[in-house]
């Protein structure tokens, strides 16, 4: 499926919108944001498994895209370029969260953070819990959690965002063969978790 096909006959293509945005047309950039924010949100929620963090990443993604608009060369499509920004922000976010040490805390206590989990938190922070049935959702959530960020990115870009292998390789800046092998590994992990439930 071609993502460059306009949904409406009169809607301008991404290329035209980028050109206009570069020339200061805010409405053009707004249209790009509204065109892709849901897709970026789906990716971010899958990567971070937290809605509020995902929202932060969606906002940061388009802010960064605006700041770097002059550097967008057009050798990839706009949406693969935006996805690349989003994936990198998600990975950075995960690294930062792992490193955060509140001031005044001893180093060996740093990892001992526990957040009380209520059902509201589950609803907000565990979106995959409600997929199809609670048990599938729970197993899927655990399986995704255990994937590395690279494997998580590949499986989400392929299954949720529907990108081709070529497009995924552009987003993640790795060879197509690497995309396929990561996809294969991620699928095996998820299949093993879901086996016996359907």
């Amino acid at each position: 499926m071609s993502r460059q096909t306009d949904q409406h006959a009169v809607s301008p293509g991404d290329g035209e919108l980028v050109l206009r945005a570069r020339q200061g047309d805010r409405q053009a950039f707004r249209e790009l944001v509204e065109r892709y924010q849901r897709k970026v949100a789906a990716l971010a929620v899958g990567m971070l498994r937290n809605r509020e963090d995902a929202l932060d990443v969606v906002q940061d993604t388009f802010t960064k895209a605006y700041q770097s608009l002059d550097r967008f060369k057009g050798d990839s499509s706009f949406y693969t370029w935006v996805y690349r920004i989003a994936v990198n922000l998600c990975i950075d976010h995960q690294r930062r969260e792992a490193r955060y040490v509140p001031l005044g805390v001893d180093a060996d206590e740093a990892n001992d953070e526990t957040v009380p989990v209520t059902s509201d938190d589950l609803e907000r922070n565990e979106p995959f819990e409600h997929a199809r049935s609670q048990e599938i959702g729970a197993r899927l959530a655990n399986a995704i959690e255990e994937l590395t960020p690279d494997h998580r990115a590949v499986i989400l870009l392929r299954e949720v965002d529907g990108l081709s292998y070529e497009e995924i390789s552009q987003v993640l800046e790795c060879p197509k063969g690497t995309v396929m092998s990561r996809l294969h590994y991620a699928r095996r992990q998820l299949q093993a978790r879901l086996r016996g439930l359907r």
Partner: protein
Amino acid sequence: MLTTALVAVLAAPAIAQAAPSDTTLRIEVTAVRAADSGPSDPSLVALRPRLRRLVGYRAFQVVNQEARDCDWRSEAHFSLPGGRRLQLLPKSLDDDVVRMQVRLLEGRHRLVDTNIRVMSGATMMFGVGRDARVGDEALIILLKPEAK
């Protein structure tokens, strides 16, 4: 003679300082309650990532917000929760940078007394609390001066 010539050629016009009296200074002070869990105020969604990185709490609620025009070289007081207040003395504006003295007071106790230079429109923060790890709440004060 040479000295006079040097003075003549080296004397450059002083930087025209934006005369504070010609500009209005609007100061916004927001009191935010930070906690480990719970909902966050939608109006803070833009600041949330920054707040999380700075203080480690996850939920932020606006408790009080006040914005008003303040006079240069005159004290301004903003009330805060818990019997606290922010005492401000805006001093000058230079190249979009606001110079001011800020005191954070709790009753008669001076928690912080500082002289700062902040870019107009930027947000400076004060935090009162223990660590996020202890699970207590914290009070975050957002100070935003804007010269127009």
